[in-house]
């Protein structure tokens, strides 16, 4: 059997992690092949290898049966491989046509022949049903049209194999319907498609076959018509990697955080959180399950005072913290373990000690009348370093020099030590090793047992299942279901996260 694309035994390492470990992917001509895996499973790395952005340490790539060495996107283009990037590679100030022809411009006596280019774009657009306005500027068109421009870019270069990297992550439901039609049209015209996704619904709807990877390893390839969401979810999540977290039964008390009818706009001024209600009580961990881009980041930014709230209110105990400054919210009793510890959690060039007081440096005893008091600061830092087992040579070492797990421990130490009523943990274990993960989970549970309210946001389903006392499923800016982790399954959660209805998994 000849494959249009065959990647054999690919291995790709980055410092400290193996992103792809012996993965094989075979794509037939004219099929839509899904590449399924959780966030961080290694899907994008594998596709960047195929597109020539990364060079693999081991493994071979065959295109239409011929072995190729592909270390440059130019080579990939000439091999007929095109990539529709998740973050669009478009020049905002250029027109649709200019973006499509860039680097391969038709000319007439030295001048870019925009007229015939636009005609060609129009022709391609008609052939594949990719509705665009060739003369519109990219900054003025919708996200859906921008994506169609990305697709046209690959077709204009004669791509036979198209890679779609999480194409639905940024689209509205209507745009998703349209995209699915486009993909079907493309394969009917003889193109082959690799679809990177973690949405089961899409796979069932459009894909022929599906290769699953998990934590950098290839799990297997299945025919979609022989599988169902349950079996795919099981392959994606992997039952055997359950972390068992030792915890007692929750004893929730009075409510601590109350969110009412919250509306928050994202940077494109579109509601990312749209009428959300949530209530978190003292002594419970509420886990938010949801696919990335359903408003989780905006929700957290709204709670912590970093993003403006358009409508609705947030109360922390009796205080209204709606649209208060971050400092104000923190002082009311909130601690925050942010999603991106390098960007938001730490000042990497500060010492560990300075990072430990990043929220409290202005208070006594760490300063007095605006003058920093270093002995209390480093006394505190050393105490926290011991208590939270932060592995660092000393408190004067820059935070940059610490491993990810120890950086995260330092953040947790700083936040938890302030003894807040309410703790937000956003993807607290992303990219960490097993030991650090266990430590962090136990600290979250310890906080719960001390009577704090904890909000956990994670894209790792098993983390949500194991750590939370209640799971709130977030979809398109709303909490669409609240379930008891003991009475649900990963399959059911997966379906709810993809916008499915409750109970469908049981019925199938």
């Amino acid at each position, binding site marked *: 059997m000849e494959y249009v694309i065959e990647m054999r035994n690919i291995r790709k390492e980055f410092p400290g992690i193996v992103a792809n470990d012996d993965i094989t992917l075979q794509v037939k001509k004219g099929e839509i092949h899904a590449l399924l895996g959780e966030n961080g499973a290694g899907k994008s790395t594998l596709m960047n290898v195929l597109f020539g952005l990364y060079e693999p340490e081991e493994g071979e790539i065959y295109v239409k049966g011929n072995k190729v060495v592909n270390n440059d996107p130019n080579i990939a283009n000439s091999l007929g491989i095109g990539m529709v990037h998740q973050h669009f590679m478009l020049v905002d100030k250029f027109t649709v046509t200019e973006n499509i022809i860039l680097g391969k411009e038709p000319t007439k006596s030295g001048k870019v022949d925009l007229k015939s280019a636009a005609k060609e774009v129009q022709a391609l657009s008609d052939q594949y049903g990719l509705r665009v306005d060739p003369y519109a500027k990219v900054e003025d068109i919708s996200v859906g049209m921008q994506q169609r421009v990305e697709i046209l870019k690959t077709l204009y270069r004669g791509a036979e194999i198209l890679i779609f990297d999480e194409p639905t992550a940024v689209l509205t439901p209507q745009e998703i319907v349209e995209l699915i039609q486009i993909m079907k049209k493309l394969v009917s015209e003889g193109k082959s498609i690799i679809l990177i996704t973690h949405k089961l619904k899409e796979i069932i709807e459009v894909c022929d076959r599906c290769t699953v990877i998990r934590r950098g390893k290839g799990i297997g390839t299945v025919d979609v018509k022989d599988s169902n969401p349950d079996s795919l979810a099981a392959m994606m999540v992997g039952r055997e990697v359950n972390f068992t977290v030792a915890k007692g039964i929750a004893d929730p008390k009075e409510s601590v955080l109350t969110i009412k009818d919250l509306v928050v706009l994202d940077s494109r001024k579109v509601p990312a959180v749209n009428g959300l209600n949530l209530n978190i009580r003292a002594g419970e961990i509420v886990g938010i399950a949801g696919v990335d881009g359903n408003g989780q980041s905006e929700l957290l930014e709204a709670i*912590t005072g*970093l993003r403006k709230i358009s409508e609705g209110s947030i109360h922390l105990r009796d205080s209204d913290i709606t649209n208060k*400054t*971050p*400092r*104000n919210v*923190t002082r009311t009793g909130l601690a*925050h373990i*942010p999603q991106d510890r390098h*960007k*938001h*959690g*730490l*000042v*990497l*060039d*500060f010492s560990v000690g*300075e990072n430990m007081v*990043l*929220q409290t*440096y*202005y208070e006594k005893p760490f*300063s007095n009348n*605006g*003058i*920093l008091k270093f002995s209390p600061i480093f006394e505190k830092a050393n105490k926290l370093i011991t208590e939270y087992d932060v*592995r*660092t*040579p000393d408190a004067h*070492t*820059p935070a940059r*020099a*610490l*491993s990810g797990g*120890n950086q995260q421990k330092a953040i947790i130490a700083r936040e938890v030590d302030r003894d807040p009523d309410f703790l937000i943990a956003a993807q607290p274990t992303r990219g960490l090793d097993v030991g650090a993960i266990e430590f962090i989970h136990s600290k979250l549970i310890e906080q719960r047992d001390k009577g704090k309210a904890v909000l956990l946001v994670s894209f790792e389903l098993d983390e949500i299942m194991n750590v939370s006392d209640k799971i709130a499923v977030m979809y398109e800016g709303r909490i669409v279901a609240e379930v008891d982790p003991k009475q649900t399954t990963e399959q059911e959660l997966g379906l709810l996260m993809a916008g499915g209805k409750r109970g469908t998994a049981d019925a199938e």
Partner: protein
Amino acid sequence: MQNNNNKIKFLVPLVSVLLGLLIGGIIMLVSDYDPFEAYVALFQGIIGGPYFIGETIRQMSPLILAGLAVAFAFRTGLFNIGVEGQLLVGWLASVYVGVFVDAPAIIHIPLAILAAGVAGALWGAIPGILKAKFKVHEVITTIMMNYIALYSTNEIIRQFMLAPGERTKTIKETASLSSPFLQKITDYSTLHYGIIVALIAAVIMWFILWRTTLGFELRAVGFNQHASQYAGINVSKNIVLSMAISGVFAGIAGSMEGLGTYQYMTINAAFTGVGFDGIAVALLGANSAIGVVLGAALFGGLKIGALNMQSIAGVPTELVGVVIALIIFFVACSYIVHWLMNRVNKGGKI
């Protein structure tokens, strides 16, 4: 890891200075000058006698302050190219107080310096506000503010303070930093008390940055605006403050000229160049207070020594400008040094 960082911190400026001098030597060689004779003359012109030492130290004072101004803003992630303009308004303000106010020296001198600082702060705060409010890049606005300062100060002198010789009147004795004593012990150089002001300013800069909560916030914003915002620090406020404080140093640098070296202000056809030299000083001094003092000593020395180099070895003083430019290039390209060190130390993570 940290050891290596410290090594790089010293290595980069040191190697850059040596490379700069080396290429300067090659330029002299191909231009038919004797580089050895020239560098000996240069060196003697810096420390070869009390007069030269006095002149070098006098030259250092405004350079230290201008360097502190650039370095302070750098620490908050801001590039203050406007030191030159802030210096001019500071110069004018100090001379204004020196000429028009009557007070005993103990009040008059601090008052004149304070006026210079306030003028510099206001001039520096404008680009800060534009940056915080309108997201306008400070590099462009500070350059524009330099020219506005140049023409405005000239006009103010012409309109209100003109004395014969295209300059202001001389300041009153009570506002002067000049010191017959310092002049006497340095063979009648133009050395004045300004160096004390500059050194105190260096200590203050260090103190603000490393010992106060304000400095903590400024440095946090400089390293990582996002994390600072998450930690509840008001980023906009810190940007404006940083530019204003930077402007204070620059303004006081101007008062060194007004109250010390010249005792008046001339109508300037062009910039003094001190503000731009401050960029070189800060860069070479890795934006630390002690580094700035050392960098100012080097560049101040080079500028003064160049005069001796010209008269003894016949090499035009401008060669020193070329050497300084080369040093800046090398420090700015320290990427290579860092990159090399990183390659060597790969896997050195804890």
